[in-house]
């Protein structure tokens, strides 16, 4: 045979084998069509339907934190370092013994494990964990803040939480060489807080009819009644000879009113920058590689070893979660939350707490809203987010859907911390016992009990435990050295 013939035969064989390779690389999809073997398709493991697997694409991976145009320092390393200092600084409270980390304790998955939080005074609601908090659309259980930096400012001046003032927050930064250097390297000069005439102690604007102040007044009245004492100056009103005096002005407001408007603005600017620094730090609190995420990676990469990240019980729980148990209705997306509000009728929820309805009212008059003067982008996404909020709210007592990332580490549960364990939560949703009274606007789909066996519930809890990833850089879990 001509040597060229050997070459040609060899080439033909190679071409044909290449064609065979392509043919064998095509795998049969469940709908009968062929799908290229490129890693664009996901495996359908035994026991799952194609539709179930398709649905999982929306749950993992956790994307990068969305940009926050209202905070131009959101991804500034210097701001984040200052924010980390502030997060753990107990001087930023009336008692000098309470920091953000007191309730959002890294050792407790950035929560406190108490049913409801306790600041200087008891609060009404459970402390939410901070995992992936930069992805939230609204903040607090009632969504009364629309950005992370704005949320971070509220507890400082709440009489229930830090019971502090913006003047004292700025003064702590001003008087601490480390904090001051970090602040001024990023944000520029601080106001001259040594000048006590321009910047009097304990000054802040006190919002009228603010719910935290109403609660603080109630606490004070109860304490006074117990002690058979006259109400203290924390009351919004006092009496003279039994007659209410209506021109009473809160001492913090009185000090604030003494200030020149330009000094008020300079002080508030520095306070806002502290909030933006805290947000820059909190954007680093990320959980994105739980066993569930490894499992979804295994689907995408068709890697059996990664599919083994979920055991059989957890896989059954996952199928229930996105199927018959209907958890997915509210808990969908990479954070297992729609980031919006629902009435779950949690047991023991006080009927006096209207949740989102009051949050919306507070948001409309919020000093630090994303469309306000302290925002770095008033007309961008913040405008789109706030402009179409409902004016016509209904009567439901709605609260934000919490993320389920690290949910096994953030007990107790519900907005009022009424349920101690994940098993209790499953029983509550499955059996609908001990539900709070119906406002008439509750989630109708939650009204019907679910047909979940004891094994189903155990599988669901097993799956929820597979959403755990607390592998955060330890350097982020304490004040910087």
């Amino acid at each position, binding site marked *: 045979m*001509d040597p060229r013939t050997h070459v040609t035969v*060899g080439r*033909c064989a190679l071409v044909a084998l290449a064609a065979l390779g392509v043919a064998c690389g095509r795998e049969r999809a469940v709908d009968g069509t062929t799908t290229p073997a490129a890693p*664009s398709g996901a*495996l359908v493991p035994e026991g799952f339907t194609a539709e179930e697997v398709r649905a999982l694409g929306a749950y993992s991976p956790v994307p990068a934190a969305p940009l926050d145009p209202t905070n131009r320092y959101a991804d500034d390393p210097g701001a984040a370092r200052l924010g980390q200092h502030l997060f753990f600084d107990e001087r930023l409270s009336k008692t000098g013994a309470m920091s953000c980390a007191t309730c959002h304790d890294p050792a407790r998955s950035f929560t406190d494990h108490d049913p409801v939080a306790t600041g200087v005074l008891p609060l009404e609601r459970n402390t939410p964990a901070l995992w992936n908090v930069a992805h939230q659309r609204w903040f607090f259980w009632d969504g009364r803040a629309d950005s992370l930096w704005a949320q971070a400012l509220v507890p400082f001046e709440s009489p229930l939480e830090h019971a502090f003032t913006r003047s004292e927050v700025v003064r702590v930064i001003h008087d601490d060489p480390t904090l001051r250097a970090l602040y001024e390297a990023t944000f520029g000069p601080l106001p001259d807080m040594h000048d006590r005439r321009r910047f009097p102690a304990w000054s802040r604007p006190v919002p009228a009819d603010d719910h935290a102040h109403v609660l603080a007044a109630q606490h004070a009245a109860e304490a006074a009644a117990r002690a058979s004492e006259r109400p203290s100056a924390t009351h919004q009103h006092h009496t003279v000879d039994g007659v209410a005096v209506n021109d009473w002005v809160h001492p913090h407001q009185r000090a604030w009113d003494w200030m020149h408007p330009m000094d008020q603005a300079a002080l508030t600017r520095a306070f806002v920058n502290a909030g933006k620094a805290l947000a820059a730090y909190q954007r680093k609190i990320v959980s994105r590689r739980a066993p569930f995420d490894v499992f979804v990676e295994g689907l995408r990469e068709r890697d059996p070893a990664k599919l083994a990240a979920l055991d059989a019980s957890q896989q059954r729980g996952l199928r229930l979660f996105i199927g018959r148990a209907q958890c997915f209705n509210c808990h969908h*997306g990479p954070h297992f939350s*729609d980031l919006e509000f629902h009435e779950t009728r949690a047991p023991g929820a006080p009927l006096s707490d209207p949740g989102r309805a009051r949050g919306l009212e507070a948001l409309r008059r919020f000093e630090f809203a994303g469309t306000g003067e302290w925002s770095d982008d008033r007309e961008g996404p913040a405008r789109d987010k706030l402009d*179409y909020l409902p004016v016509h709210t*209904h009567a439901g007592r709605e609260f934000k859907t919490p993320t389920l990332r690290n949910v096994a580490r953030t007990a107790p549960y519900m907005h009022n911390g009424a349920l101690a364990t994940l098993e209790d939560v499953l029983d509550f949703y499955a059996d609908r016992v001990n539900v709070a009274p119906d406002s008439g606007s509750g989630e109708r*789909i939650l009204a019907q009990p679910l047909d979940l066996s004891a094994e189903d519930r155990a599988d669901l809890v097993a799956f929820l435990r597979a959403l755990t990833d607390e592998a955060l850089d330890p350097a982020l879990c304490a004040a910087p050295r």
Partner: protein
Amino acid sequence: MTDSLVSMGCLPRNHAARLRRRLGVGALGVVVTLVLIGASCADAASGGAAPTVPAPAVVELPARPGLALSEPRAAVTRDGLYRMTWRPSEGFVPINEPFELEVTVARNDETRAPIADAEVVVTCEMPAHGHGMLREPRSEVLGEGRYRVRGMLLHMGGHWTVAVTVLVDGVASTADDALDL
């Protein structure tokens, strides 16, 4: 065969003619190769004598759930007066992301005359859940019976009813539709 290989992307077209010229000389090689392919495919198709592991099924894994709607939806108002069309601006209704609608309003008669300078209101409800959107979208007039509705957000998957209402001279007419996300 060379045409098939070209169409499968395995063989550049300019090499195909050269291969065809050589096929006469290399026919033995082709025959041998085809026999090999045939044997392999027969194995794959029938399972062969030896046990084989079936190819696992694969599916696409979309990261952004929602409903593709490239063509406008059309509906006539309950009172029969107007014919409305609506479509998402990007041809896609996402779940739990803001989006916009483009709406047209015309008379439901032989003139199909566009209704300009009206007000369009879109409301969506989830009957199974007992609630609607957590936003109140608003419309702007684009002219010639066209409107843009901003502020839409359907925060959950499932069955949504869609009511597109047009306010003409103070009188409301509503067209009904539905979406399954």
